[in-house]
């Protein structure tokens, strides 16, 4: 073991030990019920951060739409695992939904056929025209159907309800749905320059957000969905601590499995190829490696983890509120976790996620207290009338801190706190 490597192992141990002490301190000072909740949420963010760290650290992809993938995963899992709504199944709703899926599949197949129509000797101009027509027709048909379907379902049964499947199935499907969305976005943008992926992911996140907010038939809108099922005993059955501790165990097991799989992938030929591409795209491309294909793989994989993490997070919250946890700025909280932890370092991502989440949660009461203090003294000493929305303003301070952290880390510690360990072969 080289000295450098020994040093970096030592540093990991020290940092994680410090993190452990911090967690212990919170357990003692805030009590186990609160601390367990915080730890479960931090764990969910760790899963999401792992998804981001492979995208950014392994492949240099800038994903601005994390919140969109999280929301898509959360909604999917809610639908898959929530108990069925008998009213819906007894109405004409299922038929409409089935028809919608059929129409969607037909449109998708038609578009795919046009996309691959080169082999039947169709020129690029005609292909573009056909695609435009197909998109327009599919859009009109689908939006017409969706309008009718949503009216029908909302009148007959309020909303669609879930499918009543086991929670784990919901989580897996959540990952798959997020992955499919990522595949579509990645397929379009990954051949182009890096900025385009950022713009497109921003767009897709906003669209997912608007869709979930407005599709009452699917998500019950402002009425919210609760209680979401847990894979373990819920606190409703009594013990808060036991229930949360079991949930935390599930999350911890998920993190360990994901971490081990990622480490394996990192040291496999596939992982070496990924790093080769990141470090020198041109060299890798000239060696005949399909750079865009590898990037697409990693983008989809990362988004699967984000969708999965979002699902785990929403089930723990137990209430699905489509307008609740969609603040786009949370995307950048996850970015802070990753770049602070050191991009491309899975341990760093876990460390960063837990540490940053704790700071984030703790900063809320601190910011409020600080601002109340300023308000009180300002009033007493200067006769300053504090604005009525002081509390919401105080929370904006945290947005400022996220931004400041990002710019400072980029400038002064581009490697993060736990830089990627140079693997030796």
């Amino acid at each position, binding site marked *: 073991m080289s000295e450098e490597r020994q040093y970096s192992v030592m540093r990991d141990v020290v940092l994680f030990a410090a993190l452990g002490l911090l967690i212990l301190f919170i357990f003692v000072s805030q009590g186990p019920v609160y601390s367990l909740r915080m730890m479960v949420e931090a764990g969910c963010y760790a899963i999401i951060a792992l998804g981001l760290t492979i995208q950014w650290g392994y492949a*240099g992809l*800038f994903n*601005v739409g994390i919140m969109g993938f999280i929301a898509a995963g959360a909604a999917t899992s809610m639908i898959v695992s929530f108990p069925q709504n008998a009213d819906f199944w007894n109405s004409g709703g299922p038929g409409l939904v089935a028809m919608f899926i059929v129409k969607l599949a037909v449109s998708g197949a038609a578009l795919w056929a046009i996309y691959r129509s080169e082999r039947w000797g169709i020129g690029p101009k005609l292909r*573009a025209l056909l*695609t*435009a027509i197909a*998109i327009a027709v599919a859009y009109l048909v689908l*939006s017409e159907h969706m*309008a009718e379907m949503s009216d029908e379902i909302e009148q007959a049964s309020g909303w669609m309800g879930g499918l009543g499947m086991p929670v784990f199935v919901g989580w897996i499907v959540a990952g798959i749905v997020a992955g499919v969305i990522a595949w579509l976005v990645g397929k*379009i*943008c990954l051949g*182009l*320059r*890096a*900025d*385009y992926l*950022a*713009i*497109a992911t*921003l*767009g*897709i996140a*906003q*669209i997912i957000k*608007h*869709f979930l*907010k*407005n599709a009452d038939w699917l998500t019950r809108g402002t009425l919210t969905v609760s209680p979401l099922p847990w894979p373990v005993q819920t606190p409703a059955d009594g013990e808060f601590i036991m229930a949360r501790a079991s949930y935390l165990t599930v999350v911890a097991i998920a993190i360990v499995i994901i971490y081990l799989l990622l480490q394996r992938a990192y040291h496999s030929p596939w992982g070496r190829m990924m790093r080769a591409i990141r470090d020198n795209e041109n060299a890798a491309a000239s060696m005949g490696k399909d750079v865009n294909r590898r990037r697409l793989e990693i983008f989809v994989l990362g988004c699967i983890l984000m969708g999965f993490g979002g699902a785990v997070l929403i089930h723990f919250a137990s209430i699905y509120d489509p307008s609740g946890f969609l603040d*786009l*700025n949370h995307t*950048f909280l996850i*970015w802070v976790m990753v*770049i602070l932890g050191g991009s491309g370092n899975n341990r760093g991502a876990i460390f960063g996620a837990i540490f940053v989440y704790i700071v984030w949660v703790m900063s809320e009461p601190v910011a409020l207290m600080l601002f109340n203090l300023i308000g009180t003294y300002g009033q007493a000493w200067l006769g300053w009338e504090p*604005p009525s*929305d002081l509390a*919401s*303003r105080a929370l*904006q*301070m*945290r*947005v*400022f*801190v*996220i*931004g*400041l*952290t*990002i*710019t400072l880390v*980029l*400038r002064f510690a*581009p490697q993060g706190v736990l830089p990627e360990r140079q693997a030796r072969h």
Partner: protein
Amino acid sequence: MNELVFFINKGLVSGLIIGSIYALGAIGVTLIFGILRFAHFAHGDMMTLGAFVTLILTAALAALGITLPVPLAFIAMFPAMVITAFIAIGLDRTFYKPLRQAGARPVVLVMASVGVTLMLQGLIRLFAGVRARDMFIEAPKEIFRIPFPGATRPVIVTEPQVLLIGFVVVAVIALHWFLTRSRLGKAMRAVSDNPELARITGINTNHVVWATWIIGGALACAAGTLLSMDVTLKPDLSFNILLPIFAATIVGGIGQPYGAIAGGFLVGFCETLAVFNWSILLRPFRDELWFELPNSMALVPTQYKLMVPFLILIIVLIFRPTGIFRGRVLA
């Protein structure tokens, strides 16, 4: 004819207004993209910031008891543009320039601009709160009702809309003059075309970068102010306006200011016409139609307006990633 007037008011005028705003934003974004080579995610908040600077100056003018034939905010906008331009240069020196000099990849600069946008957002909302504000402090906004032959309803144009259109026309002519006639303007185009060659030729990159931020910052301030004058000043503009502006930039071809203007109007009109209720325009012909006219016949429901720029963006990225005006070949 009232239906036609409705179409002019809700379709054409709205499209023109929002298109102008997008165009003003997209000019800055496309210049920054072309010269500094990154997508500037802080542009939306720069617009908000500029509008707030204007609001503060307007309040100061109003407090001094000044009244003018034009809205005070419009007058205050010009010094605010200067201030915003300086802030833009300051942001560049503090946050982007060090990264550029360290040879950071463009995507790192994109990320830094996200950091900057969050900081601006936090600061603006910290000091100004989150509620919407009216830019017309001293007097209500004037509304022009232009009678339309054969219709009982008039075409409605407000004072800020007239000012906006006038400003855009002047700004575009001035920009055209600057880019094609002045030494610095030509140098900007040269750097955007081929930065390596520009350096070898001895073009002072620093001056070009300053000019870029001055134009980008000033126009962002104008766009933010004029948009706020048309509706209200809302501090939550930031990410919501980025997508249409980026779409306009990419449609027009990166580094192409004229493309950005065209792209801005294209996105603006597509957006308003997509959410426009076409059944109103068809109502006079309802007896001759072969189908029953539904009450609402919009291509896109209003709440999904954002779909429009996104779809435009996706279609351009698939079929013509260089934009319709052939921006630089991208890699």
